């Protein structure tokens, strides 16, 4: 079973617009991570937010975490065609070896 569930499943926007993806999870976590997967490639780590953090930035990425609602959001500002990919949230637990991945959001940015 999946721990994280992304919403929406698919998103299509114009270049220059912002893209927001949401992730909900079920159990207590140590951290939440976001990954990107380009077509035919492996996942690439984007950003990690710890359970005691509420917001984190990296370049055009902004991640928020609300542990009371068990949810996170990934915002990509000023999107580019090169941002077209699938985005996955993943959660880790304290002392755990595993990272649990959601089913992903497919983002399509039109030039």
């Amino acid at each position, binding site marked *: 079973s999946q721990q994280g569930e992304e919403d929406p499943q698919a998103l299509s926007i114009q270049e220059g617009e912002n893209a927001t993806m949401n992730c909900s999870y079920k159990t207590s976590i140590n951290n939440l991570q976001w990954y990107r997967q380009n077509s035919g490639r*492996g996942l690439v780590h984007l950003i990690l937010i710890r359970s005691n953090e509420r917001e984190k930035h990296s370049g055009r990425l902004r991640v928020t975490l609300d542990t009371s609602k068990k949810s996170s959001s990934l915002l990509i500002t000023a999107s580019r065609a090169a941002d077209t990919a699938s985005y*996955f949230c993943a959660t880790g637990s304290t002392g755990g070896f*595993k990272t649990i*991945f959601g089913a992903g959001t497919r983002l399509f940015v039109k030039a």
Partner: protein
Amino acid sequence: NAGVTQTPKFRVLKTGQSMTLLCAQDMNHEYMYWYRQDPGMGLRLIHYSVGEGTTAKGEVPDGYNVSRLKKQNFLLGLESAAPSQTSVYFCASRTPGTGTWNQPQHFGDGTRLSIL
């Protein structure tokens, strides 16, 4: 520094055949993982290893075996391939982390396996 390398990239098997997928990492990571990715289902953990000589079952281990004889290599074996094992297989590795905090995983580019 190649990161995580998976071999082969593509393979077609017949039902009942066996094969081994190889994963090699050059980052001196302790933890290694095998996942399968199917449409609409994200990544599902097959087996993982927290160190040389150790392995453990993940979410979907049936029909697969693994070995971690060397720290840098993690092998995934299909004993008797079935059409249900048609999938894209990803290997990943990471360090244990600092204190209680997890670290992100580094992925290979996958092995696309079709079983007829």
